[in-house]
């Protein structure tokens, strides 16, 4: 049961081979059995899940079910869930019971999906390894000595170990795609603001984007159908007509022009990963795609620009956490400044404090032009690079991550080294483009991810190519042996 795709599970539910309550119990049992090894969930909502599953069964019996009604899922703990702890991986919000639901959560509930719980994550989504969470690191199901990637590492580990059939994540600089790659999954970062950000705890508002992490492109398409919609409560939400992202999965990809950015295949890329990607490229070539060398000349500048823009935005967004209205408050403050400083000093972890301080510095008088304004101009260059590339090709292909999953603790002493884990994913966020990662093989038993980047709102095309690849290969069907 646990290795079935969403389509297979939906068929099983609709043909009454099992009930949603049975399916939910099955995954809750797996969480009970395996979560201690992985630490992939912060909160398990068993009672709520069973109640939702019961309601889903009634919908299924009455013939009023949607396609995903009754399917269990997990939400990253960055999405507000009414009446349920929403910690964002932080001590600051360890006692925060959200008073409302994020739009993403509401949409999943309306579609009849069943929430198993809230998944672990880097604190306030700041990290590439899931080691900055207040609730401890998440382990990679393929190798418990390795990180699952971040910041949506709890969601990725839960899906990879089949503790949940699918999960939500968020991607500010690669936080859906990089953990999907490191855990052997399919993860999609949609076009900026295609999925509502209402109720998603903000890190860097011009970059953050929620999306699905699942086993296959088809699964991801099915959940994107639920998530992607205009939301009047999000003032940046895209007024884009609803699409059926499943409808083009079986289109031929013959004649599709795919660009290979030379800057993504340079010396920073592990040669083993390069070889795995070469095999995947040949597979797509046999399916009829054509490949063309292209250039994204300012790629190397994306990470430095990101590490000014994201901290600048986070220093502003996280100013709301001051110990006054909700969240952590320090003991016995002497005055209001002491209340602010100690609540924030004690409530935030080291990486969050580093980024707030960098952001405060970059926005301060005398440094604004040199850092923040310059980073915004570099962002323009990155965006122009993509615009020029999309005049030549339909899709851009490259690695998702320069290495496979690294070991726990390997990069924690060197923030810059950690930041470079996201060198191939960050440019996409700066430009606001859609991109996905799919599994294409292994190096030393650790999964390798391939990234496909599309032009604005070309999610259907990305999913089509990914699905066609997955029809020809079985990498997406591999299960970590310990969780088989």
């Amino acid at each position, binding site marked *: 049961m646990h290795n079935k795709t969403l389509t297979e599970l939906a068929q099983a539910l609709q043909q009454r081979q099992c009930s949603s309550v049975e399916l939910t119990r099955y995954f809750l049992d797996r969480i009970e059995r395996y979560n201690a090894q992985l630490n992939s969930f912060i909160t398990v909502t068993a009672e709520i899940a069973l109640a939702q599953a019961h309601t889903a069964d009634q919908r299924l019996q009455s013939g009023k079910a949607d396609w995903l009604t009754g399917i269990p899922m997990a939400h990253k703990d960055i999405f507000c869930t009414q009446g349920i702890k929403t910690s964002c991986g932080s001590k600051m919000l360890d006692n925060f019971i959200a008073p409302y639901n994020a739009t993403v959560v509401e949409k999943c509930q309306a579609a009849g999906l069943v929430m198993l719980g809230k998944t672990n994550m880097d604190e306030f989504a700041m990290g590439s390894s899931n080691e900055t969470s207040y609730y401890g690191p998440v382990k990679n199901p393929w190798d418990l000595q390795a990180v699952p990637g971040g910041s949506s590492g709890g969601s990725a580990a839960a899906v990879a170990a089949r503790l949940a059939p699918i999960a939500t994540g968020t991607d500010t600089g690669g936080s859906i795609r990089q953990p999907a790659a490191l855990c052997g999954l399919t993860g999609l970062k949609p076009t900026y603001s295609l999925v509502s950000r209402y109720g998603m705890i903000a890190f860097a508002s011009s970059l953050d984007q929620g999306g699905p992490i699942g086993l296959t492109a088809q699964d991801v398409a099915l959940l994107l159908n639920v998530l992607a919609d205009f939301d009047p409560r999000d003032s940046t939400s895209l007024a884009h007509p609803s699409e059926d992202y499943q409808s083009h999965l079986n289109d031929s990809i013959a004649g599709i022009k795919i660009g290979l950015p030379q800057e993504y295949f340079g010396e920073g890329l592990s040669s083993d990963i390069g070889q795995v990607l070469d095999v995947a490229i040949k597979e797509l070539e046999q399916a009829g795609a054509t490949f063309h060398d292209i250039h994204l000349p300012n790629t190397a500048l994306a990470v430095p620009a990101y590490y000014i823009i994201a901290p600048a935005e986070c220093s502003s967004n996280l100013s709301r956490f001051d110990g006054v209205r909700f969240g952590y408050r320090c003991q016995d403050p002497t005055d*209001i400044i002491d209340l602010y*400083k100690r609540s924030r000093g004690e409530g935030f972890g080291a990486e969050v404090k580093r980024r707030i301080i960098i952001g405060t510095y970059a926005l301060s008088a005398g440094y604004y032009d040199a850092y923040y304004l310059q980073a915004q101009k570099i962002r323009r260059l990155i965006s122009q690079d993509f615009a020029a590339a999309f005049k030549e090709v339909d899709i851009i292909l490259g690695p998702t991550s320069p290495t496979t999953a690294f070991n726990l603790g390997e990069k924690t002493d060197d923030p810059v080294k950690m*930041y470079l884990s996201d060198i191939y994913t960050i440019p996409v966020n700066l430009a606001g483009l859609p991109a996905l990662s799919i599994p294409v093989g292994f190096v030393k038993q650790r999964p390798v991810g391939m990234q496909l980047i599309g032009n604005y709102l070309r999610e259907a095309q990305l999913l089509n190519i990914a699905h066609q690849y997955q029809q020809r290969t079985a990498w997406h069907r591999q299960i970590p042996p310990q969780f088989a």
Partner: protein
Amino acid sequence: MSLQKAEVEKIAHLARISLSEADIPLYTHHLSNILAFVEQMNRVDTDSLTPMAHPLEATARLRPDIVSETNQRDHFQTIAPQVEAGLYLVPKVIE
């Protein structure tokens, strides 16, 4: 760009974050490394470029200035650290 201890303390104060004395050297080291890393942006001539603040160049959509939410003050204050008579309590600023 290398930061000094006093600068880190000053920025942390501006950001309203307390840092323990023992942690400041490591913060100073890491923050200096990050600033040195981002310095490479300055090698690029960007005089002719317009800064890009939003990936889709969009501006925030406005809505009519009418009340659309019901008052949920009591509900929201159930998660507050300290409240009294509908107000959030904080330490005295002036004696």
